[in-house]
């Protein structure tokens, strides 16, 4: 859902740009505090994977296609702030290098997919993961549900921005955007859950948010492991 130039009013774009820039500045600060040499190549690879996966459009009903977003994927692996930075950089390259999404709408695209998708999606993930008491099954439930929500929430934000720009009335654009992206969200949930479970099987230490379920007597160790999540 890369918004091209001209769909949104300049006011909306400017406001979204300001929020996104603030969030990114804070994100850089947080990442700076947390990341060392080890995580930097991991960020690069996550971004490369997201970029490549975003090129792969899968068909959904009614002559429409959707593609992976990767907001929850990157947030769960590297933390929400690194997730936001990765999504922002991917969007910037797509906009400047591939004319996918307008430059004036870049702030809005970062807001929808980064701030709402990555930070908001991560919030939902953590909420559900905690509600499931950090069980192994709960991890995947939280992953799938938050991945679906990240796409649908980003679509909702896009619809609201389109309506506020006077492009299309909210009663028209909101149900259609949410309806279409409810399907795309299923694809997002499947891809996110599959790829994270593959990583979890091969290298569980790379999934920052995952807390291995261990008996209660080793609680100290568990608390230590959960510190990995930003």
């Amino acid at each position, binding site marked *: 859902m890369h918004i091209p130039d001209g769909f949104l009013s300049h006011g909306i774009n400017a406001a979204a740009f300001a929020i996104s820039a603030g969030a990114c500045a804070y994100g850089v600060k947080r990442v700076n505090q947390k990341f060392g040499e080890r995580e930097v190549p991991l960020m690069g*690879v996550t971004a490369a994977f997201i970029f490549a996966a975003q090129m792969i*459009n899968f068909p959904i009903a009614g002559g429409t296609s959707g593609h992976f977003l990767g907001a929850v994927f990157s947030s769960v692996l590297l933390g929400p702030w690194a997730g936001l930075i990765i999504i922002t950089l991917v969007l910037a390259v797509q906009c400047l290098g591939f004319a996918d999404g307008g430059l004036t709408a870049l702030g809005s695209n970062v807001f929808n997919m980064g701030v709402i998708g990555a930070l908001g999606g991560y919030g939902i993930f953590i909420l559900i993961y905690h509600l499931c008491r950090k069980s192994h099954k709960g991890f995947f439930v939280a992953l799938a549900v938050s991945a679906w929500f990240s796409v649908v929430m980003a679509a909702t934000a896009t619809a609201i921005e389109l309506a506020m720009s006077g492009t299309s009335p909210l009663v028209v654009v909101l149900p259609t955007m949410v309806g279409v992206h409810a399907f795309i969200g299923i694809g997002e949930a499947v891809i996110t859950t599959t790829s994270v479970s593959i990583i979890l099987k091969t290298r569980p230490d790379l999934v920052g948010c995952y807390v291995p379920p261990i008996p209660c007597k080793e609680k100290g160790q568990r608390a230590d492991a959960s510190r990995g999540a930003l």
Partner: protein
Amino acid sequence: MKKRLDGLIWIGLGISLLMALFLSPYTSSFPDGLEKVAEMKGFKDKGKGWTFWRHAPLRDYAIPWIRNEKVSKAVSGLIGTLAIFLIVFGVGKWMSKPRTKRTQPDRINPPDPDRRLK
């Protein structure tokens, strides 16, 4: 506990590059969610012909001088994936550089005994 990452990074990058090279040319060319909604609700042409940034070298995931559509998309995907890896790597290096004085012991990143071994 922290294991080496080198091999894994290359595997991950390799998978991404293969995806871009061999999967991207065969994907659905239907309009995506937003494009479809714009088409259906009649605001697709809004702002058409007005583009702020006209210098995108690989416009619409295609290389201008490669005629074959599939090859064009595959190569542009390959370039993009490599470029994004290098860009994020560079930005990550810049971001993770310590900018605050590290005179007091760092509580967030405790010294990692394994780091010397890498």
